[in-house]
Structure formats: C-alpha cells, structure tokens
C-alpha cells in the first residue's frame, strides 16, 4: 500500500533551484535510501515531506492525503525525523527528551509517558541512561535517544537525515544496528545516508539525487551492479571506495 507519494515537486531558494520535478513513491514498510553529492537537495527533500520547508510546486501525499491539507503539527506527529547533529533537547534528560512529545502532543499522563519513554529507550539499548543529560552521552547514544524520541510518537514514516555522519567511526555501528532492527520490524523509513553497507542490506530502493533531480532509482542490486547511468556508477563507486 502506498504510504508516501511525491509528485513533481519543485523547490527553489531565491534563484537557486534545489529540487526539480522530483517524483517517487514509497510503500508501507519500505526503506528508501537517498544518496547524492553535497548540496544536491537531499535534506531539502526530507524537510519538504514534514513541511519544515514548503514546496513551490507539485504535491506530496501521505497515506492518500495531500500533506498541505493536514494540520502541520498533526503531519509532523505522523512523520518522525532524526537529525544529523541529533538536536536532543539539551535541558532534558534522555527520558525527558522522549516524554515531551508524549505529554504535550499526545496528552499522555506523566507516569504513562515515563513508562513509555523507558520502553523506547530500552528498545534502542539505553535503559540505563534514562536519567542522563545529552551532554553526558556519547554521540552514538545521543543519536539513539533521537531515534527513541521519534519512535515514541508512533509515526507512520521516519525521516533520517544523515544520522551517522556526525559520529566517530566506532560509534556508527550502534546507530546502524538500531536502524537495521527498525527496518526488520517493518518501520517505513526514508533515509539520507552514505552508509553503503546499510543501503545494500536494508534498502528496498536507492534513489540517486544530483543537482535537485532524481538521476536514477531502483533496488540496491541494480544500482550497485548494473546502474543505468555512468554518473550513478561513478558516485556509488566513489562512496564504496571511501568505506
């Protein structure tokens, strides 16, 4: 069943066209990986989906409803987001980061919210860090709290914007393993990431975005083994080479 449908989306900042006629579709339980050079519009595309940025033209449907017809807070409750630099609420503990949305958006009573938060922290392997403040956590732990915070709202779709690229190499694995678990459990995920191992094993589709346009899109095997475009081969080859 189609969960997300992006149709002919255009987006410009001033004279600079950042997204040009972008269209694609995701089914429920799909894991879509977006790759592309810096400045190609990957973050902008994600932000258009939860309306942190407004599109200029085109349409985006979530579960059949055009997202601009939805209340934006309701939309964002249904579409979670995980950030490159975590953006944990610096004044709240790990548990407090997860409970804020539960309490203020879902209106959960305090005790239920705390119990729920602890469940989600346990799911990302941080049951023992519930009382820690972000500054007391490693980058990998912070990002896992970020994932727990997004998950707790029970979104239909989670957007990941380079969730591991601010991490030291030895901390990347713990975050990817949580993401892999989510993928295995059937969470619908739209991920900007250059972790090719994850893309190869977890992605249902990979989209190569360049200069605001979708150059090529397909299952991982096709893009890695037999891409249609030379540019795709070159870019993915380079990424694989780095790793």
């Amino acid at each position, binding site marked *: 069943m189609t969960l997300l449908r992006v149709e002919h989306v255009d987006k410009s900042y001033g004279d600079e066209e950042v997204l040009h006629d972008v269209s694609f579709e995701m089914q429920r339980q799909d894991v879509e990986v977006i790759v592309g050079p810096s400045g190609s519009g990957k973050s902008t595309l994600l932000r258009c989906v939860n309306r942190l940025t407004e599109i200029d033209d085109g349409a985006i449907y979530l579960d059949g409803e055009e997202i601009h017809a939805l209340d934006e807070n309701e939309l964002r409750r249904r579409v979670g987001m995980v950030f490159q630099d975590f953006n944990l609420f*610096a*004044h709240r503990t790990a548990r407090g980061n997860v409970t804020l*949305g539960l309490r203020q958006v879902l209106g959960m009573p305090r005790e239920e919210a705390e119990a729920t938060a602890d469940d989600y922290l346990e799911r990302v392997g941080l049951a023992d860090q519930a009382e820690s*403040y972000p500054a007391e956590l490693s980058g990998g732990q912070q990002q896992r709290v970020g994932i727990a915070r997004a998950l707790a709202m029970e979104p239909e779709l989670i957007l990941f914007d380079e969730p591991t690229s601010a991490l030291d190499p030895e901390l990347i694995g713990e975050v990817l393993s949580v993401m892999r678990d989510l993928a295995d459990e059937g969470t619908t995920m739209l991920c900007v990431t250059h972790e090719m191992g994850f893309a190869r094993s977890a992605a249902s589709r990979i989209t190569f975005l360049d200069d605001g346009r979708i150059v090529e899109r397909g299952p991982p095997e096709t893009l890695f083994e037999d891409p249609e475009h030379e540019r795709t081969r070159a870019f993915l080859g380079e990424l694989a080479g780095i790793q």
Partner: protein
Amino acid sequence: MTTTDVDQTAVGELPGRRRLAVGAVGVVFWAWLLARWASHNTLLDRLFTALGAPNLVQSELGVRQREPWLPAEPFQAASDGVADVAASLGPASVLLEWLAWLFDLAAFATTIGPQLAAGAFVTVYLTVLSMLLGLLLAVPLSVARVYGGPVLSRISLAYTELIRGTPLLAQLFFLYFGLPLAGFIDSFGFVGSGGVPRAAVFVAIVGFTINSSAYQSEYIRAALQSVDPGQLTAARSIGLSKLQGIRYVVLPQGLRFAIPGWTNEFVYLIKYSSLAAFITVPELFRRARNIGSDTFQFTDVYVIVALFYLALVLTTALAMGKLEQAVAIPGLGRGADRD
C-alpha cells in the same frame, strides 16, 4: 551576553578567611535588617495579621520599635576620646583623626539606622516587585521580538527602543506628574493608609516595571538567540506547535542563559530605584537625603547609605549566582563553555 556580565562569583571566590569575614558581616547586617523590619513595619504587620499571627514581634518589643537598639553614646565617647588624643599630637595624627571619624560614623549610623532600615524595606520591595513584574512583560516581549514575525517583532522593538532611549527619571516624572495615574491609584480608598503604601510607590513600581521590562527583554532576546535553532526544529518535528516549542524547549534554555544579564539588570535597578526619591517615595535614598538636610551631615549619611546599597547589591549577586547553580544543567550554558 558576555560584555555585560556581572562577576557573580566575586564574593564566592574570595579566599576562605576573607569570605568568612564578608559572610559574617552580611549575616549580621541581614539579621539586624530583618529584625528591624519585623519589629516595626506596618505593611509586614498587616501581612502577619492576615496570616493569623498579629503583631509578631512588635508586641514583644513594645515602645522601642522605632528607636535604635544600640546606644550611640559609647561610639561618640570613643570618637571624642580619640579626637582629643589626636589634637594633642598635632599635625602628625591623620590616622587618629580618621579613626575618630569612623567612630563618629558608627555613632551616627546607630542613630539613623532605624530610618534607613525602613527605607531599605521600600527599596527592596520596589526592586524585587519591579523585577518580577518586569520579567512577566519581558518574556513575551522578547519572544515577540525573536519569533513574532514582522509586525509583532517591530512592536516589541519599538517599545524597547522607546523605553531604553529615554531617561528613567523622565519616565517617572511623566507617570507621576504627566499622567493622572497617581490620582487614579489614590481613588482606591485603601491606598496610603493602614500600611498600604502611598500612590507614589505604586507609580514607581509601574515605572520601574516598564523600564526594567525593556532592559530585561533585551537580555532575554540575546539569550533566546543563542539557543541553537535546531532545538526548535526538533521540537516542531515531533509535532509541537511553534509556541509549545518556545515554551517547552527554547525558553527553559534561554532563561537559563539570561541569568547573568538578568543579574546585571537587578543590580542596576537596585541603584536606579533611588530615582523614586524624586517622586516622593520614601525609599533608602530619600530617607538619606532627608537625614542629610536635617543634620547637615551629608557626607556621613551618604557613606552609610552607600554601604547599604553595597550590601544589597552583593547579596543579589550572590543569590543569583546560587540560583544559576541551582538550575544548572550539565553541558548547558557557562559550564559547557569550559568543557
């Protein structure tokens, strides 16, 4: 936020023994001041009565409430004695003369202490009330300035610029003489009798509240702008509205960042509250001025009153430092810069 920081830890960082000495002086001063307020203060007395504890201290101390508790005579005698010795020593006795003046000052201080204590009470509640009411205005003003969009932010900007661009004394005069505010306040029957302050005091509170709200909102604005914008983005990404994000994420961090600036404003207001003297409010400075014109000992009374202000300012700085520590969060604010 850095240019205008008051060094709140100035007292806290003194070496052990001197810290103890300053602390001891402070404790004695405050014990004396609080005891004076408790023993003779119609406003507090009313409050105690309302709370079911009438005449808490007053009845015990009877008639001596208004009078000094320490006699001036021993200090005066000491001063005279030292002065005599100094006179017999001739011109080489500068130090002794100075000592005589100190004793003289102490004698004078015991005499005028009760009046100054009453003045300090007005100064303290004037300042504290104006700061708190000012904060209530400053938070929405600064939020409007940073997040309010073109219209609200300009209104907020115009307000703060108007207030900060005009002299405080002119604002007080405008409120007191220019507007029928005092008359309006007086039209409430209870004002000015039975321990309720006179209209001028209310006008002063209104004036200081407006004035300090403008300055406080500037400090808070700067603090809000130093909160990482990603914090609000993250708040919005879980479905909080912009206002909720500001309330639950930006303000708790920004207000913590604002404490040093807020302390600055608090200290300023303690001193600037002396301008209320010019609209007849019987606060610390006005009492000092009156004592001066009664006794012609202007130098002495201003030295003594300066020590009062110094004690109030140091206490505030110390208390705000404690507050900052009490609400500190690991990795947030000043501590984080040192990591």
